[in-house]
């Protein structure tokens, strides 16, 4: 077993490198991805090694980044687009929703929309506006797309490669506040299927479900709860669309209580989806309604207030208290 310790940023970089080595059709494109290696250095060194034709520094226009990637995919390439920050994906929304998501169908399967859109998402880095958003629900709501998120370096390393290999278009959400956290990466054996949820910590009383940056927060909450004698199961959804409801339902059948954690406003969110889907699947097992701990229904705040906005250990424990307070 070849296990190395590295940051998530490095793991993504290595994953991209391996994907580019494995297949000449893999291209990287985006703003500042070349010489600079991206503002987060995720593509560091790749242009030097693979050339300007495969690591493309683009003009500053997101609709064009995604729109030309569609054309490259039609030509048989497998572009990996970097959107510099979550809040800058919206100029490309039209291309993503009307073209990326629909061209496979519109062409009766002739076109393969084999492209990955990398999106550093969620908050926690003390940034200015538009640099900390959680747009995953927009994409999950859109038929034709898939949305995944990594929470560990190992997943980052493998999931980016699995996504590039996959023939459907994938919105790849990277929890930017975790880029610099280190973890073990087994570079020989892929850990899990791309669309599988993973139980990160087993527990008996309440099922916590989240993804991306929220996973570590949930684990911390579970630790804190343990001190109080409460056993929380932590599930990393990993695939945001489609959701691996089987893994979640199996947990919920045991715990009977659900709290979903994410950073977006809760209306029509992934949290709403998980709660509503599981309320049907596990109707007879639910001992309390599924609750969400999410961003508030406001624009992402100036970052001096972001820790009040983002789900915190306290807010998660508060929701745990509330689901424990029900008795059905």
């Amino acid at each position: 077993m070849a296990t190395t310790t590295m940051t998530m940023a490095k793991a993504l970089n290595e994953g991209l490198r391996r994907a580019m080595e494995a297949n000449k059709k893999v291209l990287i494109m985006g703003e500042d991805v070349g010489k600079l290696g991206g503002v987060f250095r995720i593509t560091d060194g790749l242009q030097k090694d693979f050339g300007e034709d495969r690591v493309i520094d683009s003009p500053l226009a997101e609709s064009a980044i995604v729109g030309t990637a569609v054309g490259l995919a039609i030509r048989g390439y497998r572009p990996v687009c970097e959107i510099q920050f979550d809040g800058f994906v919206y100029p490309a929304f039209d291309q993503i929703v009307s073209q990326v998501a629909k061209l496979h169908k519109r062409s009766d399967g002739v076109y393969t929309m084999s492209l990955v859109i990398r999106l550093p998402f969620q908050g926690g880095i003390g940034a200015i506006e538009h640099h900390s958003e959680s747009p995953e629900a927009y994409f999950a709501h859109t038929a034709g797309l898939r949305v995944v998120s990594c929470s560990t370096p190992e997943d980052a390393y493998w999931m980016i490669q699995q996504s590039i290999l996959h023939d459907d278009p994938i919105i790849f959400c990277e929890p930017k506040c975790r880029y610099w956290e280190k973890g073990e990466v087994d570079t020989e054996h892929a850990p899990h299927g791309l669309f599988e949820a993973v139980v990160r910590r087993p527990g008996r009383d309440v099922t916590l479900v989240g993804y991306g940056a929220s996973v570590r927060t949930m684990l911390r909450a579970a630790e804190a709860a343990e001190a109080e004698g409460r056993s929380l199961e932590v599930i990393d959804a990993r695939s945001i669309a489609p959701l691996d409801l089987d893994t979640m339902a199996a947990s919920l059948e045991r715990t009977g209580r659900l709290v979903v954690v994410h950073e977006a406003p809760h209306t029509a969110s992934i949290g709403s989806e998980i709660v509503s889907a599981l309320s049907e699947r596990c109707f007879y097992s639910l001992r309390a309604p599924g609750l969400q701990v999410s961003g508030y229904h406001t624009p992402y705040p100036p970052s001096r207030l972001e820790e009040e906005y983002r789900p915190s250990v306290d807010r998660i424990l508060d929701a745990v208290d509330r689901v424990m307070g029900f008795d059905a």
Partner: protein
Amino acid sequence: MIGEELVQLLTPEGERVSHPEYESSLTNDQIVSFYRDMVIVRRLCNESTSLQRQGQLALWAPVQGQEAAQIGAGRALAPMDFTFPTYREHGIAWCRGVPPADMLRLFRATSNGGWDPQKYRHSVPTVVLGNQVLHAVGYAMGVQRDGAEEAVMAFFGDGASSQGDVLESFVWASSYNAPIVFFCQNNQWGISTPMSVQSKIPLYHRAHGFGFPGVRVDGNDLLAVYEVSKRALDNAREGGGPTLVEAYTYRLGAHTTSDDPTRYRVDAEVEVWRHRDPIERVKALLVREGTVKASYFDEVAEEAEGLALQLREDVLAMGKPDPLTLFDDVYADYHPLIEEGRREMVELGVAGGEH
């Protein structure tokens, strides 16, 4: 209309004229054959309009008046070139070999596409204005990376020229020197919006501001459109980068069969353009030069008639698709919600399609 800036090689009266930069290279055989294309495309278009009137199509977007623009460009393409149409490029589709009935699947509302875009090297119809132009630039970037000697042609209208996607395409194509020809059919109208709302100056000028050549061609002049397109395509294939071709033409019919153009434009304008009919113009040339026997025109008309009948037959035979096809080709790989939907529909016992 005939200004210095408009490339014209054939007058509305069917007389050849010279131009300082372009000269017709078409053989008589080619002109004769492209005349046939135009007649057939118009006849098929008329048939489609009737089919719509008779309730057999959900909608139709007529191409009348733009036949020279489309056959001129379509016949200038090399087989390996790739084209990205809007919803009105029936003439281009014809040149690429798309079976006429397939062009109508979108309008019969039995498909959102209709043909195999890789087989005909002609992409699926794009309804969202401008989206396909970026795809074309990306495809052209792929051609560059493959080191292939191919060109790409992107079609859009005067109205779409205002969309960010089209304008960003200009930036990108110029930046990467992509082998692409932007073919804008300026048919003077975007539904009810006159050209003057999109630009106060001739559209082809826009290219210059992005650093590549733009040229305005008489879009009702088959000979000129062919030469201008050919040179732009050759230039693209040879690494010369993008060109914007503005084909100055006119939409003689309604925007679509849902449209009522009498609300926004006067008959007199349409009349003026009827006198510039692109098909009559070539016919006049053929007659003037005695290129074909008088009977040729009837032969072509008859052939077109036959194709129209065939089209009608094919369209009427296009039944409602099996509802379960809803779930096909949404994803390339297994997706639980697709399976769930399929299962639900089967359980509901929703009737299959007509075949």
